[in-house]
């Protein structure tokens, strides 16, 4: 019984032809018609076919009877060719390699050499052992419990929108910041002051607007009441002034016959003011 074959269950490929395990086939290379292609497709390549032959013949990978293995290997190839099956070039390459090994085996071994190193079968044995190991590892991997086959994981459960992560701030940061603001007050002009300055005052603007509306004594478009060529701040103050006048009911909004809204003086309350 061969030594180096990985200690695993039968060849990783449980070869079956038309439902029959390949092991039960007669030694005389009987392949049912149309089954050879299926049979060869089960192998990843020539190395695996070779490994399977060696195992079936219970040969030792470390001491391969090259002549016999080559004979069997070539019979598969010839059979395949006879049935016009397309074989990968790798299969022919392997045949060439086997022939080369066989030829070198016939040469007398140099007396002084260590036979291990010069055994022409060594590289083939290494390759076959590596493949046998891969097959063993594949079988071991496939035997592990697998998600979706042997167990199911709990899929991540949804949750509500989460509160944002609080920033890293200590109370001392806030206190320190406040102290700094107190010790070092801003020197720049203050926005609040700008609003109350003489030419931009809200109250003043309200008076001006009310005067314009009263003078025109007709419904005015909003655009007509806003100062022309004004900066953003002046526009904002004017708009604020109109809104405030509307809130105080000094002005009122009326719907115009041509559509849209117009601003008029509210005669009931603000008209006389």
């Amino acid at each position, binding site marked *: 019984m061969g030594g180096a074959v990985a200690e695993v269950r039968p060849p990783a490929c449980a070869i079956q032809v038309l439902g029959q395990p390949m092991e039960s086939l007669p030694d005389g290379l009987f392949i049912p018609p149309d089954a050879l292609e299926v049979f060869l497709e089960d192998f990843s390549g020539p190395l695996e076919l070779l490994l399977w032959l060696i195992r079936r013949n219970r040969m030792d990978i470390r001491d391969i009877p090259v002549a016999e293995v080559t004979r069997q290997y070539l019979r598969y190839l010839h059979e395949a060719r006879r049935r016009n099956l397309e074989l990968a070039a790798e299969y022919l390459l392997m045949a060439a390699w086997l022939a080369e090994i066989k030829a070198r085996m016939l040469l007398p071994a140099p007396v002084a050499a260590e036979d291990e190193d010069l055994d022409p079968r060594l590289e083939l044995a290494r390759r076959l052992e590596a493949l046998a190991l891969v097959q063993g590892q594949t079988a071991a991997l496939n035997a592990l419990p697998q998600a979706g086959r042997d167990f199911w994981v709990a899929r991540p459960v949804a949750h509500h929108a989460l*509160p944002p992560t609080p920033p890293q701030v200590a109370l001392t940061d806030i*206190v320190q910041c406040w102290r700094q603001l107190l010790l070092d007050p801003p020197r720049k002009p203050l926005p*609040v002051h700008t609003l109350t300055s003489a030419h931009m005052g809200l109250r003043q603007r309200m008076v001006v607007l009310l005067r314009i509306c009263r003078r025109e004594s007709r419904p005015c478009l909003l655009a007509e009441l806003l100062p022309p060529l004004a900066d953003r701040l002046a526009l904002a103050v004017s708009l604020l002034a109109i809104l405030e006048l509307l809130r105080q009911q000094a002005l009122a909004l009326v719907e115009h016959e041509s559509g849209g809204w117009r601003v008029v003086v509210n005669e009931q309350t603000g008209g006389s003011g």
Partner: protein
Amino acid sequence: MRERLLALLLSSGEPLSSDHLATVFGDDPDFTGWETALDALLTEGYGPLQLVFVAGGYRLRIHPCHNSLLARLHGETPRSLSKAALETLAVIAYQQPVTRPEIEHRRGVALSAQIMQQLQERGWITVAGHRETPGRPALWVTTPEFLEHFSLVSLESLPVVQTRNGGVHQDSPQDEAG
């Protein structure tokens, strides 16, 4: 039966419709009463799980009471506040209730809407009303969450800040604005 139903729901990445569940359970007498179990799950939940009906099917959800814990796992890594946001927070904390123009006045720079939004999203500041002056500006205050986050019993427990020429900071900007 409840556990079987949960097993199905937990292993599924998408909501399961009644029809789908009915197909899985079939007429199998082992699985009678799954509809009752479904109803029970909908009303009672199961530990930290709630069952909700969404997108035409049933799906499990973590009960929102665990949100703050989940945020620790799934939330982005905390970043420090910008100086502008920190100053704004300091002004609101010490001067509340305070309007936006007053905050700008105190800091000497215009206040971006983004900062206010950021602080609001943190749940640290909120609008407590409006000042009855023209424009009725919103009055900003800190929230109970703010106190809780900084382990403050009340606003009175904010550390007192004194300056040499004390009292300057007591000037309420609302007097200036009024």
